[in-house]
């Protein structure tokens, strides 16, 4: 599948998606409420992007952006980056852990590091930080006066 074909296929399902081809791989931008249906489309036939190899979040100060790197084990040439903006004041997004089980742990990491709340996550608890830790360490506004390196 070429990028153009992918774009037409996705637009057919999700007209709201916008595209960015500046990077190495095709990037799909989407609003957070449309993420889950689109993810399900990508996961299913004929795209079969069954391998979520990176899930992370970026803090742009004004908003958070969830980033999903997807590829297919049957066709390793297809790589797609899925991005969804999340409101920073009230970060809620639907979980994708039922589509890709690996997201279960990765979302837990994002949950404690960025404070993003994943709806319908089976087990959304802290994985790395201790229970009484305050703040979200990977957000840009996080300051730890004692332990942080400042150059």
């Amino acid at each position: 599948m070429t990028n153009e074909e992918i774009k037409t296929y996705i637009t057919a399902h999700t007209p709201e998606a916008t595209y960015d081809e500046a990077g190495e791989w095709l990037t799909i931008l989407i609003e957070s409420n449309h993420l889950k249906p689109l993810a399900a489309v990508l996961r299913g036939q004929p795209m079969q992007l069954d391998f979520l190899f990176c899930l992370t979040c970026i803090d742009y100060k004004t908003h958070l952006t969830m980033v999903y790197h997807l590829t297919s084990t049957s066709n390793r040439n297809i790589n797609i980056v899925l991005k969804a903006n999340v409101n920073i004041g009230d970060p809620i997004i639907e979980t994708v852990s039922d589509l890709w089980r690996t997201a279960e742990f990765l979302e837990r990491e994002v949950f404690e590091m960025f404070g993003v709340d994943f709806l319908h996550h089976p087990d959304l608890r802290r994985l790395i930080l201790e229970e009484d830790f305050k703040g979200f360490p990977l957000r840009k506004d996080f300051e730890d006066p004692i332990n942080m390196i400042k150059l």
Partner: protein
Amino acid sequence: MYTETEIIKDTTNLGPDGELVVNMGPQHPATHGVLHLVVTLNGETIKKIEPHLGYIHRSIEKMCESLTYRQFIYVTSRMDYLSSHINNTACALLIEKGMQIEVPERAKVVRTILNELTRIASHELWIGAMAMDLGAFTPFFYAFREREMITDIMEDTCGARLTMNYIVPGGLMYDIHPDFQTKVKAFVKQFKEKVTEYEDLVTGNVIFQSRTKGVGVLTTEDAISYGCTGPVARASGVSCDIRKIAPYDAYDRVEFDEVIETAGDSFSRYMVRVKEMNQSIRIIEQLIDNIPEGDFVGKTKNVLKLAKGEFYQRVETARGELGVYIVSEGATTPYRIKFRSPGFSNLSVLDHIAKGSKIGDLMATMGTLDLVIPDIDR
């Protein structure tokens, strides 16, 4: 502490079947580091495993946001310390890709050789440690005999034995040691002679086979769904070798096979790693006599600046796919950096494949997942 009545009261928070909740780790001989598993047991049978991470979390990702592109590479050696060369290579490759730096052929070949040596060293350590988890102490020393030769080569070349920091954007920090080629050849010779020894000691051992065959079976679908990579996924029949999918450095010009087993149990994970070491030797043999002359580092600016945008680089470490994802705002430091560590995904599968097995099986399963805790925690 407890009085007798308290102990009786305490039994109320047990499960209906009188399950036993046992903490394995952070100070446990088999977790190889500070991994904390909360294991729910029914007799000897495991009901649930819950990993608690973070005992060695240094927030490398946050740290890198305030380090320049030249500096942050050295931090990455501390992630998966057994593949520190490969971690460094990933970062260097990403910066080279982002800035279109030409890397001299010599550097590419040397990087490839060092990466493969690192892979062998890592697998050697793993064989020893895993055999120790299963109660056999001796293979550890046999594996370390060869690993020691590699660390000696590393020491000559990089000045360090564990956290090498030898690879810089554009090539290598220094030229290789004059004895590099002879030493590597001597290692290859010895390895080929001695590798049969621990195959005799471990692979053919009846007890070892009965402990690992059919234990911790990971199906192909689960391996894909859980995002497993490296030997763990390849033992389940998933083709995921980044060296084949997206070749970097000199991997596109060497011949080697991607080792794939289909059983998905602990024994096939073991076999994948053993065979992979032989493939690494094959790669080294092809390259060691053909190290091109020339510069060891390309022309780079003193201050590196990545253009605004996003960059992703994947490499194959000894544990699987390491991804480095950088979001750049055009400054001298990355805006956001994310390391997709292979161990994190491989750990997430532990509960799934060890559930229902015995405590002894947990050691075999955990051992063959080859978890390096700093890599998981970052």
